[in-house]
């Protein structure tokens, strides 16, 4: 079973890298990009066969290591 974790800075936390990308897009002539948020995607291969159990496990992994919940939020998808 595969899982995909998407980690993003929480709303309200200034994403300075996203802002730099937004500026660069403007410089390249792409008008109308009002905002850019940059995050990371983590894919996991899991031995677990039960989707609900896998999701609970991956959420625990996010809380403990994969995301810093002080500044980041995460989304777990079981694929």
């Amino acid at each position, binding site marked *: 079973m595969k899982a995909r974790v998407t980690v993003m800075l929480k709303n309200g*936390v*200034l994403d*300075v890298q996203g802002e730099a990308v937004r500026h660069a897009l403007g410089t390249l002539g792409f008008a109308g990009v009002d905002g850019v948020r940059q995050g990371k995607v983590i894919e996991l291969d899991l031995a677990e066969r039960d989707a609900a159990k896998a999701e609970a496990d991956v959420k625990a992994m996010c809380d*403990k*290591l*994969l995301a*810093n919940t*002080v*500044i980041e939020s995460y989304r777990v998808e079981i694929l």
Partner: protein
Amino acid sequence: MKAAVITFPGSNCDRDLATAFDQAGFQVTRIWHKDTDLPHGVDVVGVPGGFSFGDYLRCGAIAAQSPIAPAIKAHAAAGGFVLGICNGFQVLTEMGLLPGALMRNAGLKFACKQVTLRVETTDSAYTAEYGRGQDIQIPIAHHDGNYTIDAEGLARLQGEDRIAFTYEQNPNGSMADIAGVLSANRRVLGMMPHPERACEPVHGGTDGAGMFRSLMGGMALA
């Protein structure tokens, strides 16, 4: 007084920190991250600067889960002193020993220069030798020193006089110009600037040595 300095793969200020403790009169033991115990009777644990685990995932995140981490947390929980500098500060926030988080510098550039810090509180063993409001010259060298905390947490730090140092000229976008913060019991200090790199005349300045001397004196009283 006994100090233990932790080394992770990618630490690069561990020897400097050990030397700073040694010159202030501490008996220093170097500890590898795969160890699970601190030396008996250790007074202060130093978590050094560097790029532990290549800054993979997030700065300090993987080091914060290393085998030595439970011993450091237990030492802090028992009222022991813990000093985290630069990457060490990032590790301590990731361990949950200090509030907030260190994000990418607002200017996106790695900042490596001498800065002026203001000593915001002398109510800690680390800063007792300085004067409140004193300016000290200490180098910084970091890419992720932009201290961030929610409004409630910031108010608590300010209300409890737990901001140890601020930048005179903010180099990284840090909230409230924060360069270093203390734990609620004032025994855990995390700071981005490098006092261990300002301890001897050959370093270009000695303003950092006061912190290690202060700690030595403060712990003798504690």
